[in-house]
């Protein structure tokens, strides 16, 4: 049976975005652009529940497929 990599790929992308946002948060803090810091750290915080939801959905789909 072929397994779907959609969930894994989505999670990899979310994790990549969250690493990039974290890096930019620190950079923008030292560049004293504080509004951007708030937006980027907000984005990183939002990405975590998104990752959790993708994980849950993936596990649910697999259970339904009987894997």
């Amino acid at each position, binding site marked *: 049976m072929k397994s779907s990599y959609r969930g894994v790929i989505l999670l*990899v992308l979310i994790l990549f975005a969250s690493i990039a946002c974290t890096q930019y948060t620190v950079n923008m803090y030292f560049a004293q652009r504080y*509004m951007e*810091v708030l937006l980027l750290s907000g984005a*990183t*915080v939002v*990405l975590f529940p998104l990752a*959790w939801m993708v994980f849950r959905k*993936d596990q649910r789909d697999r259970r339904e497929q009987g894997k």
Partner: protein
Amino acid sequence: MENEKTRPIPLKDDNYTHNINRSNERSLDRRSFMKTMVGAAGLFAASTLPWGALAAKELMSSSSKSYPTQKIANLSDIKPGDAIEFAYPGEHDSALFVYVKEKEYKAYQNACTHLRCPVFWDRDEKELLCPCHHGKFDIATGKPLAGPPRRPLPEIVLQEKDGAVYAVGVKRYEEQL
């Protein structure tokens, strides 16, 4: 001969050191791989919170900070090419004043923007040099020229009064970039 299956300890594990036999000890299946990624995303989310809090604190406090006026040196006491180390605005914020040439002087906070090593004035090369990883900064603008640093050094605003130089403020990055 003893049967391997009825023996309480399998023969291959009957030793003092390599006797832990957990099933799938080192395998990483799909589920735990995805869990690790979710955990990492959570870790990154948590790690940005202090930066967000610090930024919010900066935004809440008055937008234009007031800086003290601090005398650095009398211009008659120094020659072109000289550099003076001082601390500005706080006593732990080390800074470097450089008398580049006649009527031209610059001052920067001299913690390297890479890993905060002190930056020195290289008189022969006319550059600011960080000896830790050979980062170089332009003396005219503070921008990084070589090595690992990516951000310019924060410039200190100077004022000449009665033959002496005073530090009166630190430029914000967005004014510099």
